[in-house]
């Protein structure tokens, strides 16, 4: 019958539209993921900080009290300074002991799964003094497994990477900002960040310099191009709910972020063209960062800048955001500014 045919055609059309939409969404998602894996330069989880510690300190604490050692070190990223006490035949496991003679035969068992770490272990031997970067864990059942473990992210001989003072923060390639750090507070003390002292000469207040209406500071940082042009710019800003037409809209975090981005990059910016990602810090803080990445054209005749904006909540009434503007042509793998900015992000405190 005619109505049967109409219904059948309608069903087919709806089915086709649904399938096409779902397929398109999956494709876009996969493309986005592929892009994101390589392109977020300020990803805090890909570049976490490690706290340096002597193997002796960890082992002494462990021998004194297992529960104390667990509460201090379990799940913590550590750069352990010690000596290779043993090495397994498969080259994937080493025993790390203290540099000094000490009573007790306990050691930290380092397990490597990454190719780079395994290859490095192959070049090291028993007795070598090393720095091992990784996450500490303890045996699942205390009574059966009384070992301390470290899952090795990277390992260096002491000839390659000098020892770090205990308690110092560094990245897994050994990078550490060896400067006096100073603090800056904004948002009436709600936000405090630490930065290298040299940044004070490179920083200006956004409002005072007529660079905008948001509270915060701009830092001009050289990049590897070093030609004096197109320097990196980092903005650290606090966006208060008072800047909204309706202050209650501050609860609509995504909406506020979009409004901020549209204002800064221009109303014509296509939000769909920005790469977006949400990252929850895995350093125990649970801080959620929302990332947006795109390009910015200052004028028609220069290559566009890349812009990466990172948002995090700062209390009920505000949002803290970082805006990193950098030259499109710079090799980011050689750009130390990224490490310094990650340092600052990791050490930012929101009250």
């Amino acid at each position, binding site marked *: 019958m005619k109505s049967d045919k109409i219904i059948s055609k309608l069903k087919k059309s709806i089915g086709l539209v649904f399938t096409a939409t779902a397929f398109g969404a999956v494709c876009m998602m996969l493309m986005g993921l592929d892009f994101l894996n390589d392109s977020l330069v300020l990803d805090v989880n890909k570049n976490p900080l490690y706290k340096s510690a002597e193997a002796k300190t960890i082992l002494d604490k462990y021998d004194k009290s297992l529960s104390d050692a667990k509460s201090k070190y379990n799940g913590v990223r550590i750069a352990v300074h010690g000596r290779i006490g043993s090495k397994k035949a498969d080259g994937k496991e080493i025993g790390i002991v203290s540099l000094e003679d000490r009573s007790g035969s306990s050691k930290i068992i380092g397990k490597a799964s990454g190719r780079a770490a395994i290859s490095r272990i192959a070049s090291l031997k028993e007795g070598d003094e090393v720095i091992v970067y990784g996450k500490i864990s303890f045996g699942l059942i205390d009574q059966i497994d009384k070992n301390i473990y470290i899952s090795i992210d990277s390992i260096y001989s002491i000839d390659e990477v000098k020892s770090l003072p205990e308690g110092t923060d560094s990245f897994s390639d050994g990078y550490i900002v060896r400067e*006096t750090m*100073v603090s800056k507070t904004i948002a009436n*003390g709600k936000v405090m960040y630490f930065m290298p002292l040299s940044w*004070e000469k490179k920083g200006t207040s956004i409002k005072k310099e007529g660079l905008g209406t948001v509270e915060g500071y701009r830092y001009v940082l050289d990049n590897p191009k070093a030609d004096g042009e197109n*320097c990196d710019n980092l903005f650290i800003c606090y966006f208060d709910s008072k800047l909204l037409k*309706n202050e209650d809209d501050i609860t609509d975090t995504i909406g506020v972020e979009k*409004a901020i981005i549209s204002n800064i990059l221009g109303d014509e910016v296509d939000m769909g063209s920005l790469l977006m990602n949400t990252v929850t810090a895995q350093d125990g803080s649970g801080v959620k960062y929302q990332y947006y990445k795109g390009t910015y054209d200052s004028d028609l005749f220069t290559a566009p800048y890349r812009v990466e904006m990172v948002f995090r909540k700062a209390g009920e009434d505000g949002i803290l955001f970082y805006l990193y503007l950098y030259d499109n042509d710079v090799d980011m793998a050689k750009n130390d500014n990224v490490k310094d900015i990650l340092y600052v992000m990791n050490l930012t405190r929101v009250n």
Partner: protein
Amino acid sequence: MRNKTRIKTLIVMLTLACVFMLCGFAIKAVKLYDENSKLIDLDKAVKVEPIGPGGVDGTDEEGSVSANESSKETVSTPSAVSAISKNKAELKRTVNISVRSEEIRMDDKETTLSDIKEYFSEKHSDIAYIELTDDYAEAETFKEVMKVLDEAGVDYEVG
């Protein structure tokens, strides 16, 4: 009869779908209080000369920075061996004291002369430097703050 029921069901579903779509469009976008001003003017920012040997246009509201800066050294990838200083990386902080009319604030929190006196009666080795800002201060109040800091024997810069 059965087909009429099916057609009615389809029409109801399509109508509901349209209503949901319209609701989506009706959700208002978040607006800023001042849509005509830039939160950050990137065009202006990239045109300003970078700091370095040339300096920047304008000054930081924090005023001049003390020349207490050690060289930045990095422990880079394993192929490079760098000479590293033995100095420990220190976390030091800046203390900002500002006076506006008769109101005194320390690190953005309201305080009093006696609180400042008590605070600086102890040594704080984690302070890099102290900046005292005259933010349209009442003259006598500002002088009293300076007197308290002088008596406490702390170094500070007036900005």
